């Protein structure tokens, strides 16, 4: 029982990061029908920008405690939001009427550029956040089930960001406009919605959440390198597909399911088999519901 509870907790903790990154893929797909492969690398850049900020604070002679996340996290999110908009302007908008493949290739190119930039600027070795920023110790939740303090904080922050996004999309005018654009660009434009600005808004929010996820992942796991976007981004992308790409609660659900299945597979069968088990299950889900768990039922595929 305790073993099951511990595995479920581990799964939720992994899954909430997958979910946070998956949101970026799914939001862009929702409004543009484009798989933004550069998203995983924007996420990786979140970890690196946080690293730059934290080392700069250390270099200035201040010992960064966990409190530095209060100013640094929003700062990183803002920088990445701007980077996301820039990316949309330069790599995607000029190709928007060019069909589906050219923007996809452009996205792949952007991903490679971002990755190569990180490797060349920061070097290829593992980076770590100063140990003073992580919260020490663990918390006994019940019986023998424990969770690290940093783990709890990171998971709570991820859940908080996701709830905020949900409220934003469903309770504000801009959110409503985003949902309208995701249904139909032309009709939305006829209703007086500035489609280009709404799309830019999506590119503000997705990378900002991705950047936050990057910092939280780096805080939680302690080390990362320029390949982080690839390893984590791929899983998140799969989570978005399973949840139903284009669907925001679907991305969260897909992320959590992927994390929990991985964790249970590793716990009850073997860590060597966990990816295989997870992907077989995901394939079965997709066979049963090709549009994903919460995806549109009659998705037209071109």
């Amino acid at each position, binding site marked *: 029982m305790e*073993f099951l509870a511990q*595995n479920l907790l*581990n799964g939720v903790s992994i899954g909430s990061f997958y979910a946070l990154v998956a949101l970026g893929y799914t939001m862009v797909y929702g409004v543009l029908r484009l798989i933004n492969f550069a998203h995983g690398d924007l996420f990786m850049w979140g970890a690196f920008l946080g690293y730059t900020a934290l080392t700069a604070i250390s270099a200035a002679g201040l010992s960064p405690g966990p409190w530095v996340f209060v100013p640094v996290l929003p700062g990183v999110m803002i920088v990445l939001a701007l980077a996301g908009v820039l990316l949309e302007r330069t790599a995607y908008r000029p190709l928007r009427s060019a069909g589906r493949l050219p923007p996809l290739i452009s996205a792949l190119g952007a991903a490679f550029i971002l990755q190569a930039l990180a490797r060349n600027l920061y070097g290829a*070795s593992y980076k770590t956040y100063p140990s003073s920023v992580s919260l020490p110790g663990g918390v006994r939740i019940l019986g023998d089930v424990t969770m690290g303090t940093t783990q709890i904080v990171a998971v709570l922050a991820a859940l908080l960001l996701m709830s905020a996004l949900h409220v934003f999309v469903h309770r504000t005018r801009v959110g409503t406009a985003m949902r309208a654009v995701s249904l139909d660009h032309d009709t939305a434009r006829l209703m007086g919605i500035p489609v280009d600005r709404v799309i830019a808004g999506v590119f503000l929010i997705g990378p900002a959440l991705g950047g936050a996820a990057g910092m939280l992942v780096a805080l939680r796991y302690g080390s990362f390198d320029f390949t982080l976007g690839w*390893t984590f981004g791929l899983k998140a992308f799969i989570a978005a597909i399973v949840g139903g790409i284009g669907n925001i609660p679907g991305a969260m659900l897909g992320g959590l399911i992927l994390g929990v299945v991985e964790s249970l597979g590793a716990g009850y069968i073997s860590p060597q088999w966990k990816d295989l088990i997870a992907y077989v299950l995901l394939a079965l889900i997709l066979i049963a519901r090709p549009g994903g768990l919460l995806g549109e039922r009659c998705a037209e595929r071109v």
Partner: protein
Amino acid sequence: MPTPRRTRLRPAPGHSFCSRPGHPFGHGPGLLFRPGLAYPIRCLLLLGALASLPVLLPSGCGRSKPATVRIGLEGPMTGDYAYEGQGFERAVRLLVDQVNASGGILGRHVELFVEDDRGDVKEASLVADRMASRGVSVVIGSYNSTATEAAAAVYDRAGILQITPSSTATRLTAKGYQRFFRMCFTDDRQGLFGAEFISKVLESRRVAILHDNSTYAQGLAEWGKKFLLERGCEIVFFDAINPADKDFTPSLTKLKAVNAETVYFTGYHAQAGLLLRQAPEVGLKVQWVMGDACNNPELVRIAGVDCAQGAIFTTEPLPIDLDYPEAKAFTADYKAHYGADATSVWWVMAADAFRVIRAAMEATKSTDSGVLAAYLHTGLKDLPGITGPILGYDEKGDRLGTIHRAYVITPKGTIVPYPKQP
């Protein structure tokens, strides 16, 4: 109904670009132009054949003796093991520069070719092909056993002498390659040392073994298991992690459930750091013993001092603990040149590999890999090395002797020899 456009992506059999009727290559029945193979695969084969031409041609024919001594260095300059690969390069380049400043080897300038294999199997064989086409006679490398194994096959065919500073998988020297040598000591000897340490010094009876499915880690894990069982220990867990992951809490939760006294982790330091860091999160309290790939201060940085302290690893001594005169001289030169200490024993092994090559070339007055290999197998005896006396090599190319020791991470995050050795 299938759309007709799709068939245009792949040329129909018999109508592809290379085997079109009337095309000069079209009549040949050879592998390269067999109609059944898809066009891209055939182009790849053709490219591969072109790339291997310089290997197939005897290197001496008609060409004058190269004016320089060409030595290759293959290692992971980027990727997971970049820390080690870049250290290889610094250590070897320091010695090459010193040798060149004092007149080179056999009066010839030494030229060092550095290639990055990223620790990856596919890259490693490509690197080996490039080395062969550059006409190097000796290669130092690679770092991890998986890459070394892939490259060794190519080097053997090309007649290039290879010395790995750090690949410890036992089977590397069991292939009958006459020109393959290593500076480090094999996994079976390290596994034996680890088992002795766990059973005699720590007096653990319930041992869990965790590896990462790499050639090296799995080999060391199997040897450790064998010798631990011989010493009456119970193996309560034997499994692998996926080194591409960041979150190992599922494995750690499983480890907690088996109630082991000691976990023997045989993988690499990046994952070891993550394991140590995440162990308290699931409430796992256990003694960690790790293999020599965890011999790296970066481990403490990744895990954080609080989580890393008390962890033990078995390894060849750290460079700063080497008290041979050659070691003192080398570490001092290294620090003077790069402004930082040589922190990994593998860098020093790479430096020793170069010194062995130099000694062999000077003793035989030759740069021919066959002559050098014969000398290393039989002639080389008691060369004073940075990593201790190099007693010689056995017929398989393994270095004789062993120099393992156990180290522990202190509460300050420093690494010191464990007070009790088996």
